[in-house]
C-alpha cells in the first residue's frame, strides 16, 4: 500500500508488523461548497510523536473531528490500529484519547468528579478509576487539587487535567488539538515534555496539532496541511533536506507558500 511505503520511509525505530496507529486514506471533507480537506492521506506508526502543522484554517480541527467520529467520513477511510472509524467506531474510539482545542471540563464540578465521569464513559469502575486517577495526578503533581472545582484552576492546570482525562482509559493513540494555545511558556514546555515522555516510556502514539513551529523536534514525523491539502509528510530532518531549509520555520514557509513539495514516496 502506498501509505505503508511512505511510513516505512520514516523508518520507525519501533517498527512492527501490526497496523498503523492511525491511517488516513484519501480523506476529503467539505462544508457545503468549501473544501476543508482534500484527499489527505498519511499514517502514523505505533510509538511515534507526529506533529500536524498548519495555519489556522488549514483543516486541522476538521481532521480531528473526523478522526474522533464527531463528523462522518464520507470520502476516504480512517483507521485507528486497523479499526475503521466509520464502520467500527467503538473499537476505534476506545483506543483513542482526545484533547480538544476548546476546554471541555465541567467548570462547576471538581477535578475528581470530571475524571470519574470520563472513566464511566469508558466503562471503568470506581475502584479502578480511583487508582488510575491517583497515579496520573501524582505524575503531574496535582494530587492536592483533586477536590477543587475546575473553575479555580489555571489554564495550564486545566489542560493538564484534560490530558490526564484523555489517558484514563489507556489509549494507544493520543490526539491533541492545539493543546498549548493560550498557555504561558512554562506550562507549554511542561506539557510538551510530559507528552514526549509518554511516547518514549509508554510507547503511546501521538498526533500533536499545532501552529507553533518551535514545538517540533528534528526527529518528529511532521505532517503539514495547507488549505486542506497535505503538502508534506515525513521526518522533520528529511523535510529540511528536501526543502533545502535550515530551520523548520523556513521549511514551513516554503511548503505553505508557493513551493509545493510533497514527500518523496508519493507519486
Amino acid at each position, binding site marked *: 500500500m502506498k501509505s505503508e511505503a511512505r511510513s516505512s520511509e520514516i523508518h520507525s525505530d519501533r517498527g512492527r508488523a*501490526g*497496523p498503523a*496507529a492511525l491511517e488516513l486514506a484519501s480523506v476529503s471533507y467539505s*462544508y*457545503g461548497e468549501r473544501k*476543508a480537506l482534500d484527499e489527505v492521506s498519511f499514517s502514523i506508526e*505505533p510509538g511515534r510523536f507526529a506533529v500536524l502543522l498548519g495555519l*489556522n*484554517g*488549514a*483543516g*486541522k*480541527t*476538521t481532521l480531528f*473531528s473526523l478522526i*474522533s*467520529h*464527531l*463528523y*462522518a467520513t464520507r470520502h476516504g477511510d480512517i483507521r485507528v*490500529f486497523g479499526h475503521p472509524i*466509520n464502520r467500527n*467506531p*467503538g*473499537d*476505534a*474510539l*476506545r*483506543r*483513542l484519547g*482526545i484533547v*480538544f482545542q*476548546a*476546554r*471541555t471540563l*465541567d467548570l*462547576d*464540578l471538581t477535578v475528581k*468528579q470530571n475524571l*470519574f*465521569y*470520563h*472513566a*464511566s*464513559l*469508558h*466503562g*471503568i*469502575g470506581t475502584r479502578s478509576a480511583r487508582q*488510575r486517577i491517583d*497515579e496520573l495526578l501524582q505524575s503531574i503533581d496535582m494530587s492536592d487539587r483533586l477536590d477543587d472545582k475546575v473553575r479555580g484552576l489555571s489554564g495550564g492546570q486545566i489542560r493538564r487535567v484534560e490530558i490526564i482525562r484523555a489517558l484514563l482509559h*489507556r*489509549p*494507544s*493513540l493520543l490526539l491533541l488539538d492545539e493543546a498549548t494555545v493560550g498557555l504561558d511558556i512554562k506550562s507549554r514546555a511542561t506539557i510538551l515534555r510530559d507528552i514526549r515522555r509518554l511516547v518514549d*516510556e*509508554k*510507547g*503511546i*502514539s501521538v498526533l500533536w496539532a499545532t501552529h507553533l513551529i518551535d514545538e517540533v523536534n528534528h526527529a518528529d514525523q511532521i505532517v503539514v496541511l495547507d488549505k486542506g491539502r497535505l503538502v508534506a509528510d515525513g521526518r522533520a530532518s528529511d523535510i529540511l533536506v528536501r526543502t533545502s531549509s535550515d530551520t523548520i520555520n523556513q521549511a514551513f514557509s516554503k511548503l505553505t507558500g508557493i513551493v509545493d513539495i510533497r514527500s518523496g514516496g508519493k507519486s
Partner: protein
Amino acid sequence: MTAIDFAAGEERKGFKLLQYLICLKGILAREGLRYFSQKERFVSSLVRPLLWLFIFAAGFRQVLGVSIIPPYQTYVLYEVYITPGLCGMILLFSGMQSSLSMVYDREMGNMRILLVSPFPRWFLLASKLLAGVAVSLVQVYAFLLIAWFWDVKAPIAGYLLILPALFLSGLMLGALGMLLSSLVKQLENFAGIMNFVIFPMYFASSALYPLWRIQEASPLLYKICLLNPFTYAVELIRFAFYGQIEWFSLAIVVTVTLTFLGGAVLAYNPARGLTIRKQEMGASN
C-alpha cells in the same frame, strides 16, 4: 502503569453489561451533580409551578368551576385539577432545559466528551435522557410535597402510582427536547423554540382546563388539544393519581416517545448529516 497498558496489540472488543451500567451511572451522577450544585436552578424550577398553584389557581377557581369528570368522583377544587398539569409542566420545562443544556454543552464542547465515548451513540443519548428524567422526577415530588402542605392532596397510593406515568411522560418530553436540540444551530435560536414549543404545548392541552370546556369555547382549539401529545401525558398522570390507567393516553405517549427518541438518535448520528449541518456554524476550520 506499564507500557503494556498502552500496547496496541491487546485486543479490546465490546463492553460487558456491567460496563454499560457503569456508564449509565456516570452520566446520571454528572447530571445530578450539575443540577444540585446549582441551588438557584432547583429553587427556580420549583417556584414556577408553585406560582401557578398558589396564585393562578387561587384566582382562577372562582371563574372556572370544574364539574365531575373522570377520574374525579366528586367536585374537586381547581387546585386539585391543575396539579397533574403542573407536574406535566415541570417535566416539559425540565425536558426542554436539559436539551438547552445539550445545546450549551455542544457549544462549550462538553457534548464532544460524551459523543467520543466508545459506547454506542443510542446508548449514550438514552442515558443522557434518563438522567434528565431522573432529575425532573425529583422536582415533581418536591413540588407535590409542598402542594400537600397547601392542602392539595391525592390518595396516598396515587403518589406511587404516578411514578411510571411521570417517567414515561418525562421520557417523551425529554426526547422531544433532544430532537429539538439537534436541530437548533445556536443557543440564541433556542429561546424561540421555547416560545414556540413550550407555551403552545402547555396552553393547548388539558393541563389548565378540561377538554369539554375547551370544546364549548372553540372546536378548533379542541382539535389542536387532541393533537397535542402533552394532553395525553397530563391525562396519563391525572388518572394514575387515582389508580387508573388511561390506556389511550398510554398508547399515545409510548408511541410518541419512541418516535421522538428514534428521531433524536438519527439526528445525532454523524452519518445522517444533521450534526454536520449545524456544526458548520461552530467549526472554525
